[in-house]
């Protein structure tokens, strides 16, 4: 073909909902010279978009997913392809009703109108439902269906109108050429296109395309079964595609929706049926399309009976036939979230994969903004491809986790629920000792970390607390009162906390200081031997990360960050390295283990195994020293995330066990206890009001709002400075606050404890929205054993961010009184930080 281009700025591969939305948003943001390729014909090239059930329920417990969905609905409406039908998630069990009550909290937190409805009310909306087998439902009036193919066509047309796009369907990709770690060209059967950027929006084929570039997009094609039955007599008088609300039969993992004269029944209940991206048939080989595989009836038998039970009037009608049945392919990822962003291993190779119809346009906008500005309006931390560590790209991990996750699609998933598969992938050197102490391990980024230690159960007698008993099953799940006992023992004595899951990067070279100054908000030109806690901002002044940076030498800095954010942080620091090569990044994560030692007895304990002077004068807060503990040379940093005197002690990985044993032995005389992440990440942190990336800190909040400003703004330039100065000037539109719960008693007379993400309401029960439209919700929740109260963190607009203000929190469809204890920076426990001064 003569008009096939040889050059382009961006090549977007895949003309499903995602690719179409990406090209439109890129064009809208001013990009030109975009080429969209697909191996299939238009408007339906044969990917998952073509057989999608196309309905959208806006409520999701995940904020990021809910925000992407709401943005997508708005866009679909603007395109005129959205039909509002309402949707009801029905419960057959009391356990599910509890989940629906929790969904009420999410709907309010994300600003979606929803109601709990009775079986009779459901019957009125869905006359063909068997209301006798359901206990109730969660009704969201704004639920609807979209025409995703039409949406894609309009998106392409709009990009063409902007003179930004050329489209080549029926164009198979043969290869992607990468030069010097950067994309160079796309080789197709019609010719080769040299380009600056490639966006992989190929859904189930994405791993195959990424592999061509020597990269990886860790998803797997998986089967979702769907049948369509008709003609349904009750639908014969309806107009358009849908008039009756969509029903999600949550307990059987099925859904039923009207589609014209037919009813579609889809399921996530069958066994996980995974496929390799390379095994997907070609368009020519497929009877229907490559992603509409032959239906395997035996996998659908139970679902058919359950659907019949719920919709007997329609499905029990012998004149209503099964006219269409497929094993539809969709994309599953190890953690269930999409895979978006630039791949860490190939520059300018972007992934926009594992996206559902409900998020497509939102994702298109997010990815386009991210490509344009380096950040997006909605925080992408759950979806960022950089979140995956190397092991998570392995086939084994992908298969194990997606197999485990598939039936959780409609499942009741506890926020701290642990995976069963793919465990013990990364363990600290202290692991054997922790096992002996009865550690209960939770996983983060592959690391096994003790959440609490069963051996500390006896501490509950020594340290009585009202917060030991949780009568609500949900709150007691994946939790132990021992966490509170460990906390109290730490505050009274001393605790050892395994922090080996930290991601650690060294930045070295003559340009290291300049690099640190550019990326970090706070002043990095500090004395050698000092450590600095600093927010990392994006260009719009929102949080990209928060972490600690040590200055080890003139041209040597060390970044310490959380394991779950490590991949993203590494990419951010790498991406902003000086182009002249005057600084480089070295990942030290696998070389260094870390123990936190904190508590009033920490100094005496550590002093007993070292000749170094551990006094406050010799080793002040924020300092960094090389200290020999027993026979091991360690590096210690005087810092605390739990509000106690103490250190983080870093040692070479191979010395870890010896270090643990030395400290443990020394600690016996000082009452040392092992403490888990339950203390470090929740109780200790919340009592001190420390903010956590991904919870309190997201790109839509700035340091002024988060209460993380410094008295002076450094004179050097840094990413986000302009926005930061502006935020200073304007003052906060919302303020991070610490709240305490005044009364936990539910209507049933038991004490309930929030889990996070619940809405904060006025005393009239109204949602609280700031001047930027952000709704107040609980960003973190947990016990404050030392203050004897339950703590919530939440952003509140200035008029509510006043200490002593009485508000409500909604949990399980009930409201509980809360009080603003601290507005802005500061803490409910030891507000003067006396204990840390030690």
């Amino acid at each position, binding site marked *: 073909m003569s008009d096939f281009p040889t050059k382009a700025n961006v090549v977007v591969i895949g003309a499903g909902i995602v690719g179409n939305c990406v090209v439109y948003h890129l064009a809208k943001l001013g990009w030109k010279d975009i080429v969209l390729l697909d191996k299939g014909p238009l408007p339906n090239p044969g990917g998952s978009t073509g057989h999608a059930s196309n309905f959208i329920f806006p409520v999701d417990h995940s904020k990021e997913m809910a925000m992407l969905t709401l943005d997508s609905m708005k866009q679909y409406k603007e395109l005129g392809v959205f039909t509002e039908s309402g949707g009801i998630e029905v419960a057959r069990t009391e356990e599910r009703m509890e989940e629906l009550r929790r969904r009420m909290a999410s709907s309010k937190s994300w600003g979606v109108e929803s109601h709990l409805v009775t079986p009779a009310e459901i019957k009125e909306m869905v006359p063909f439902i068997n209301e006798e087998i359901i206990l109730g439902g969660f009704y969201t009036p704004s639920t609807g269906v979209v025409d995703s193919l039409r949406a894609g066509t309009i998106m392409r047309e709009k990009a063409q109108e902007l003179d930004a796009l050329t489209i080549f369907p029926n164009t198979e990709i043969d290869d992607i050429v990468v030069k010097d770690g950067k994309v160079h060209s796309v080789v197709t059967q019609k010719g080769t296109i040299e380009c600056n950027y490639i966006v992989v929006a190929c859904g189930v084929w994405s791993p195959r395309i990424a592999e061509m570039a020597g990269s990886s997009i860790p998803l797997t094609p998986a089967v979702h079964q769907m049948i369509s*039955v008709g003609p349904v007599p009750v639908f014969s008088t309806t107009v358009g595609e849908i008039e009756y609300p969509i029903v999600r039969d949550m307990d059987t993992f099925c859904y039923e929706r009207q589609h014209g004269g037919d009813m579609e029944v889809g399921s996530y209940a069958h066994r996980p049926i995974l496929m390799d991206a390379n*095994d997907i*048939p*070609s*368009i*020519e*080989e*497929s*009877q229907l399309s490559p992603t509409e*595989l*032959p*239906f395997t*009836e035996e996998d659908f*038998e139970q679902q*058919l*009976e359950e*659907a*019949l039970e719920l919709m007997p009037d329609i*499905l*029990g*009608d*012998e*004149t*209503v*036939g*099964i*006219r269409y049945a497929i094993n539809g392919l969709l994309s599953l990822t190890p953690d269930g979230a999409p895979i978006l962003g630039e791949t860490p291993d190939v520059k300018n190779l972007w992934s926009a994969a594992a996206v559902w119809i409900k998020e497509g346009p939102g994702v298109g906008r997010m990815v386009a903004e991210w490509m344009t500005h380096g950040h997006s309006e909605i925080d992408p931390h759950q979806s960022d491809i950089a979140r995956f560590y190397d092991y998570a790209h392995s086939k084994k991990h992908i298969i194990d986790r997606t197999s485990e996750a598939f039936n959780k699609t409609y499942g009741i998933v506890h926020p701290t629920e642990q995976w069963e598969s793919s465990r013990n992938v990364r363990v600290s050197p202290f692991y054997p000792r922790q096992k002996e102490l009865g550690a209960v391990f939770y996983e983060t980024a592959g690391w096994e970390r003790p959440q609490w230690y069963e051996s500390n159960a006896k501490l509950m007698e020594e340290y009585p607390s009202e917060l030991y008993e949780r009568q609500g099953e949900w709150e007691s799940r994946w939790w132990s009162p021992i966490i509170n006992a460990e906390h109290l023992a730490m505050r009274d004595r001393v605790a050892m906390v395994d922090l080996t899951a930290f991601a650690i990067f060294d930045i070295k070279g003559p340009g290291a200081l300049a690099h640190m100054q550019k990326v970090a908000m706070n002043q990095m030109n500090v004395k050698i031997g000092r450590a600095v806690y600093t927010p990392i901002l994006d260009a719009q002044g929102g949080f990209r990360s928060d972490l600690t940076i040590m200055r080890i030498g003139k041209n040597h800095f060390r970044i310490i960050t959380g394991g779950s954010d490590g991949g993203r942080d590494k990419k951010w620091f790498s991406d902003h390295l000086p182009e002249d090569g005057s600084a480089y990044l070295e990942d030290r994560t696998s070389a260094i283990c870390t123990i936190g030692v904190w508590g009033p007895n920490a100094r005496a304990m550590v002093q007993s195994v070292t000749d170094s002077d551990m006094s406050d004068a010799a080793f002040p807060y924020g300092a960094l020293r090389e200290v020999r503990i027993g026979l091991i040379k360690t590096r210690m940093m005087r810092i605390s995330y739990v509000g106690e005197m103490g250190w983080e002690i870093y040692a070479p990985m191979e010395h870890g066990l010896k270090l643990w044993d030395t400290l443990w032995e020394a600690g016996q005389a000082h009452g040392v206890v092992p403490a888990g992440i339950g203390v470090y990440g929740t109780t200790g942190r919340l009592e001190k009001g420390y903010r956590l990336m991904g919870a309190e800190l997201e790109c839509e909040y700035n340091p002024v709002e988060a209460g993380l400003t410094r008295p002076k703004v450094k004179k050097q330039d840094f990413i986000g400075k302009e926005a930061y100065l502006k935020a200073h000037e304007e003052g906060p539109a919302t303020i991070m606050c610490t709240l305490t719960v005044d009364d936990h008693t539910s209507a049933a007379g038991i004490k309930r404890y929030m889990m996070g993400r619940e809405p904060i309401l006025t005393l009239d029960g109204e949602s609280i929205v700031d001047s930027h439209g952000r709704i107040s919700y609980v960003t973190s929740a947990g016990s404050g054993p030392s203050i004897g109260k339950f703590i919530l963190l939440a952003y509140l607009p200035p008029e509510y961010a006043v200490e002593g203000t009485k508000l409500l929190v909604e949990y399980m469809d009930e409201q509980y009184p809360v009080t603003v204890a601290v507005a802005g920076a500061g803490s409910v426990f030891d507000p003067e930080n006396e204990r840390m001064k030690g």
Partner: protein
Amino acid sequence: MTLDILVCVKRVPAPGAKMTLLADEQDIETKYLGFTISPHEECGVEEAVQLIEKHGGTSTVLTLGTADAVEQLRYCMSLGMDKSILLERTGHDWDPMATSRAIIDAIQARKDAGENYNLFIFGNESADSGGYQVGTRVAHAFDMPCVTGIKKIEITEADGQQMAIASRETGAGMEVFEVPLPAVLTVKEGINLPRYPSVPGRLKAKRKPVDKSTPTAVPGGPVKSKMVVPEEAGSEVQILGRGPEAAPKVVDILKELGVL
């Protein structure tokens, strides 16, 4: 007057546009494919179900195939067939001679046990190998009348003799046969509009009986040496233009074709 109908079907792949052969060239690659029965057979099943609905009796569906062919038997039963027989073979497809021999044996065995059918319906030909023989061979073995290519069946009774009035299309019109039962009729697509299975039908089919046995292949008959995928004919598409300016060219073409 009731009917006892036996419908014979064959499990065949439902291919896409492109067929790939296995390395031994004995069969097509079915890794990505679903399976079905031929449209003629679907109509045969529908016809049987309708006849039983009208006249009463029993309907049985039979197949000679691998163990997987039970999927097609269940499908036929979900459409309303009462019960099924699986003659389970292994190895490659059997030729029409061996296939009909196995079916004849199965019918004979049931005859011997006092179980008789009075109407045998086959598809006019199978969807894959298209041998056109099995129905005729079975009829011949039992000395029954056989009419092929049937597009309409009515059942009547005269003087205690059940008759099938079977019609088929010729170039000039319809040929109508009066056939005394028992008889073999091979039917063609278009005789009726087959129904889709209903959900209750599917669920009932799970509980209907499948009578399984293993036939022994008789030696002889034609042997498949290999399969060949024919060259793709390919067609050329010429875009005449877009929008209103294309209209005159369309008119020219229609004139050329003699439509205008």
